[in-house]
């Protein structure tokens, strides 16, 4: 499966990809995008099976990326990996169609728990 990691921080994209491998998902192909706009281009071209996105990004926030995808009829499983936390964030994300939120800092164990049902 192709997994798209969307984050404006190159460091965080690397950490997410590294953690995916540590969690045992090393057979997945990872793709990267540094913004919501770039993510839309990658999604159209590569059709990933899962999107992991930061929440707070310049140009297009993660939540706006998700809303855009759903408005366009794209139902690719989508989860947030973000420093943002709180019930308000979780509510907005779920309403928009997100499957999960993983809050930073995270562990490989957390990735495994959240992603195993999706990637099985």
């Amino acid at each position, binding site marked *: 499966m192709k997994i798209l990691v969307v984050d404006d*921080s*190159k*460091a*965080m994209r690397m950490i997410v990809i590294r953690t995916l491998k540590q969690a045992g998902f090393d057979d997945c192909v990872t793709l990267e995008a540094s913004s919501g706009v770039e993510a839309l281009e990658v999604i159209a071209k590569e059709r990933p099976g899962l999107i992991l996105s930061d929440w707070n990004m*310049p140009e297009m926030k993660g939540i706006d990326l998700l809303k855009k995808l759903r408005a366009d009829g794209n139902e690719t499983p989508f989860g947030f990996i973000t420093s943002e*936390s709180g019930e308000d964030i979780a509510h907005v994300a779920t309403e928009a169609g997100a499957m999960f939120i993983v809050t*930073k*800092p995270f*562990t490989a164990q957390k990735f495994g728990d959240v992603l195993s049902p999706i990637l099985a």
Partner: protein
Amino acid sequence: MNINSEQLAELTRNVCQAMLGLDITPSPSPASSETQLTSKVCISGQWNRTIEVVASPEAARCLAATMFCMDPSEVAASEIEDAVSEVANMIGGNVKGILGGDCELSLPSIESQSSVTLETEPIAKATFDLDNGVLQVLLKHS
């Protein structure tokens, strides 16, 4: 709701340990007068706070090298800024979660400064030794 220095230190340790595998130790040393790299994130709304992560060159380089799995001598300036900004972002997000309420978290901004100027007394402060350098986290009113 406020966060004290002990909570800020614990939160910072958790971020460094969980995300980077770095065990950082509290330091009684203040940040030195050499050029520091500072990343700020702001919380605005029901609570108005600024979180500053101030890193000496050694500490900043160590954070970047660990994040990017590189030799410290090989990390580029942009990677150092990215790493320090991401640490600020994670700490800021966690502080926002603890404060609760209806708030927004800004994107990190970065600046270099020749010394740490405490123009306003921080609400909380945590200082750590990191690779012969100093990492300081400040929580301020904004």
